[in-house]
């Protein structure tokens, strides 16, 4: 029942032609740009942590193609998002302003996610229906089913995106959330970002199967495994799933096979549990930016000058966001009493 998309791509490029997917040349250039923005922003946050300007960093590096491919299949402003901590590029892609996103790393008072109350990468952006995130893994999954139920009940055709790691698929929340969504055929896309590790625990200790998506059949929804390093393949799969959901045909479980290029977080030292050769291999073979760049070149959509220009443009955005955010005020201690209840 599980569908497999672009997994055996022999190409160092991408498996589909963007025109056949209904994407313009500009769309593809934009996708690359957004991926790069995700990467450079992420790298900046990493530096901020090392500089002691943030206490924590958790990286989406390696997962940008899956995030961008997913993001473009949704309608920002209309659809809902319950993303997980690695989804930085997705947030940028749906339009959360870089300056506002950066506030989280500096834990500033005007951080739109939590006013600096939560650790970085605990997303939330009300204007674009990005739901407030927590740390406990997978709690967002049944919540996303409930969000989608509300859309369906009101007869609205919005679709909800919810993501989690393959480790998160081990939790009861996954089971109970997917089951409810399938029974009620609600418009939600469950996106499993399978990067092969839950901190140090490799996927084969997390489950005795190859694909999380194989569990979809056990709930009665379609399951798709897609090469998460291929932004166009992911887009194709997501678009189909989103369209199906929007037509009222129910949820889909999409598993993006992806990689985690960095340690789990700034608190983790991954030399304890994986070899440097593995990292080198991932960087060489699995970097989604390298593959997207190859595609753009191959398709004649960009040349070196363009890439340089984009790089510059992105760095300006990142620098601006950093400088601006750093200059914003910290929360005041006494404001920590606020927002416990609506009426006190």
């Amino acid at each position, binding site marked *: 029942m599980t569908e497999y998309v672009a997994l055996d791509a022999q190409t160092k490029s991408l498996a589909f032609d963007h025109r056949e997917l209904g994407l313009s040349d500009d769309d593809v250039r934009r996708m690359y740009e957004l991926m790069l923005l995700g990467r450079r922003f992420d790298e900046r946050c990493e530096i901020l942590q090392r500089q002691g300007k943030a206490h924590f960093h958790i990286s989406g590096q390696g997962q940008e193609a899956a995030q961008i491919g997913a993001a473009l299949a949704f309608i920002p402003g209309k659809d809902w998002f319950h993303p997980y901590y690695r989804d930085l590029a997705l947030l940028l892609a749906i339009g959360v302003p870089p300056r506002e996103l950066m506030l989280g790393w500096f834990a500033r008072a005007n951080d739109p996610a939590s006013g600096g109350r939560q650790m970085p990468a605990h997303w939330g952006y009300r204007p674009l229906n990005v739901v407030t995130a927590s740390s406990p893994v997978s709690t967002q999954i049944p919540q996303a089913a409930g969000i*989608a139920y509300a859309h369906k009940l*009101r007869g609205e055709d919005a679709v909800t995106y919810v993501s989690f790691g393959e480790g998160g698929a081990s939790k009861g929340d996954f089971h*109970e959330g997917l089951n409810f969504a399938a029974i009620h055929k609600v418009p939600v896309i469950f996106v499993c970002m399978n990067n092969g590790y839950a901190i140090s625990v490799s996927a084969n200790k997390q489950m005795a199967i190859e694909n999380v998506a194989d569990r979809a059949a056990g709930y009665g929804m379609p399951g798709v495994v897609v090469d998460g390093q291929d932004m166009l393949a992911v887009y194709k799969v997501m678009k189909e799933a989103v369209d199906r959901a929007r037509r009222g045909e129910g949820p889909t479980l999409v598993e993006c096979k992806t990689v985690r290029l960095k340690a789990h977080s700034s608190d983790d030292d991954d030399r304890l549990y994986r070899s440097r050769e593995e990292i080198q291999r991932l960087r060489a073979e699995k970097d989604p930016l390298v593959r997207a760049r190859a595609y753009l070149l191959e398709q004649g959509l960009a040349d070196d000058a363009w890439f340089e220009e984009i790089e510059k443009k992105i760095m300006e955005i990142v620098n601006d966001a950093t400088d601006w955010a750093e200059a914003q005020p910290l929360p005041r201690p006494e404001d920590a009493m606020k*927002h416990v*209840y609506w009426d006190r």
Partner: protein
Amino acid sequence: MPVKSVLEAIHDTLWNAMEADERVLVMGEDVGAKGGVFRVTAGFLEHFGEERVIDTPLAELGIVGVAIGMALNGLLPVAEIQFADFIHPAFDQIVNEAARIRYRSNGNWECPMVIRAPYGGGIHGALYHSQSVEGFFTHVPGLKVVAPSTPYDAAGLLWASIQDRDPVLFLEHKKTYRLIKGDVPDGLFTVPIGKGQVVREGEDLTVIAYGMMLHHTLEAAERVALDGISVEVVDPRTLRPLDEDLILSSVKKTSKVLIVHEDNGFMGFGAEIAALIADQAFEWLDGPVKRLCGPEVPAMPYNDPQEHWFLPNPDTIEAAIRDLAAY
């Protein structure tokens, strides 16, 4: 005013709430065709349809998790946990999620939902159909915990809870469902969350109780009144936020206090009330702050002799009142 049981009061209020506001829906195990194991939602499925009367899978984590999502997206779910004993699988979704959504988002998001949970013993429910769970949940800032003891309060507090913009755990004492009857106005009305009530005025000592224990306490108070012991009885009605002023002013008046609940005492809700009094009313106290609670065993046994042994009752409350009065 019509006389209703606690059960009828809850049934009617839920019904009226669903009539009044289409964002309200009920969900839980067996709430549909069966109308709930206690028949609280009897007739709802036929009238409101299965989109708003959802028979969920047997999955409490999922019930609460899904309800949170609904609340985030503009609905006002009333989720039924079949027995309070089975709320524990949803502990994470309640404590780490529902209760923190407003705070963690700095007020950008809110989670207006009600979790109804029948609790309490005396119905041969044994270890897993008799539990009191307020001890756990009253500890949680961000959550409101309501425990009405009368049909009137059940109706008024339920409507207040449904309209409240925060998550509310609504505890219904099973033994009161059919046993306790009283006047309840027709239609929707509110009893404010966070306000307790002096149910009986007295001079010699204060007893604080809720749920079935409130009714046992009133009976005990009647009895000792014959011997000239004047008991003030306070029903907190809401356990979090607690009406601390009401409790303190009663204790300052009577100078002695007994707290009664059927949950075990150690870290039971009486601990907080006692601690509050020992701090804020210390100078008014004329005797030790007393608690009469269920025993320190994991839960209520099933067999009759031991179930009876477990529960505080009018006799044991009376004895505790007399002891304290004599202090």
